[in-house]
């Protein structure tokens, strides 16, 4: 079983395909779960602590917006843990908490410079593209050891 980071890290399709093929998908919700389930002083509605942006300093400088550093506090450990990655190229799918363009650029850059097997794709828009999309992911995941 290989730890595969999916990008966008909230992607249901990529996470499902990775787990279907018997690997472990690294998704942001698993990181959030650790925070939610860990008993601490911070009660709802806070789910980020003042410590988190400091952790992000490892990946982004202090003059970078705290939003980027806060996101990197979650994504950074995932990147370090990843043995492979599947990345969706377009930005139309980065919505909600993954809607920060600078974090997306930084995450993709860090994954590319990590020298791990990476598959870059676009989301399919028709039947033929969907077949190719699934086939490529399957081939990529089967090739991981």
């Amino acid at each position, binding site marked *: 079983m290989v730890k595969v980071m999916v990008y*966008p890290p*909230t*992607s*249901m*399709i990529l*996470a*499902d*395909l990775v*787990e*279907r093929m018997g690997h472990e*998908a690294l*998704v*942001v*919700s*698993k*990181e*959030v*779960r650790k*925070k*939610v*389930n860990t008993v601490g002083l911070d009660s*709802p*509605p806070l*789910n980020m602590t003042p410590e988190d942006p400091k952790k992000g300093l490892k990946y982004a400088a202090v003059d970078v917006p705290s939003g980027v550093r806060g996101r990197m506090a979650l994504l950074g450990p995932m990147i370090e843990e990843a043995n492979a990655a599947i990345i969706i190229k377009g930005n*139309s*799918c980065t*919505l*909600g*908490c*993954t809607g920060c363009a600078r974090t997306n650029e930084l995450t993709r850059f860090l994954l590319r410079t990590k020298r791990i097997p990476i598959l870059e794709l676009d*989301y*399919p*828009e*028709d*039947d*033929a*593209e*969907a*077949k*190719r*999309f*699934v*086939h490529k992911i*399957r081939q990529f995941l089967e090739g991981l050891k």
Partner: protein
Amino acid sequence: MRVTKYVVTSQDSDVLPSDIAMKIYESGHEINVKETCFGVIIDGEEDDIKETVNEIRAIDPNNIFIKDRGFPPGDPRRCRGHRGGGARPGFYMMEYESKILPLISQGLASDELDEEISIPEEKTRPSVERIEELIKEEFS
């Protein structure tokens, strides 16, 4: 550790959220199930969830998609009832991907049948050399 997952059905699926919920009740695992418009949210101990996920997937392998969720069902930090309505954070991504699910289901079905030969070539941009050739052909 307790684990929460979304189970989302594709629009092409004949499986209803209530069918999935019934299947989970029949399995006898101690799992909380919340039916939603797109599928169900399941919450329980990691081992129980792992077994249940395999059972649910077996109902309609190509049309059921499963995703992790960070917060438990009804958590006040995410529940719309506690936040004064509006879309739940994370809804937009799920909405975006739900539209593509029928295509992915078809892709999975064809991949199962090993239809890779019929997959057309990917469109690629012509190289600079190729464009130069085309210009020379056109204007010579």
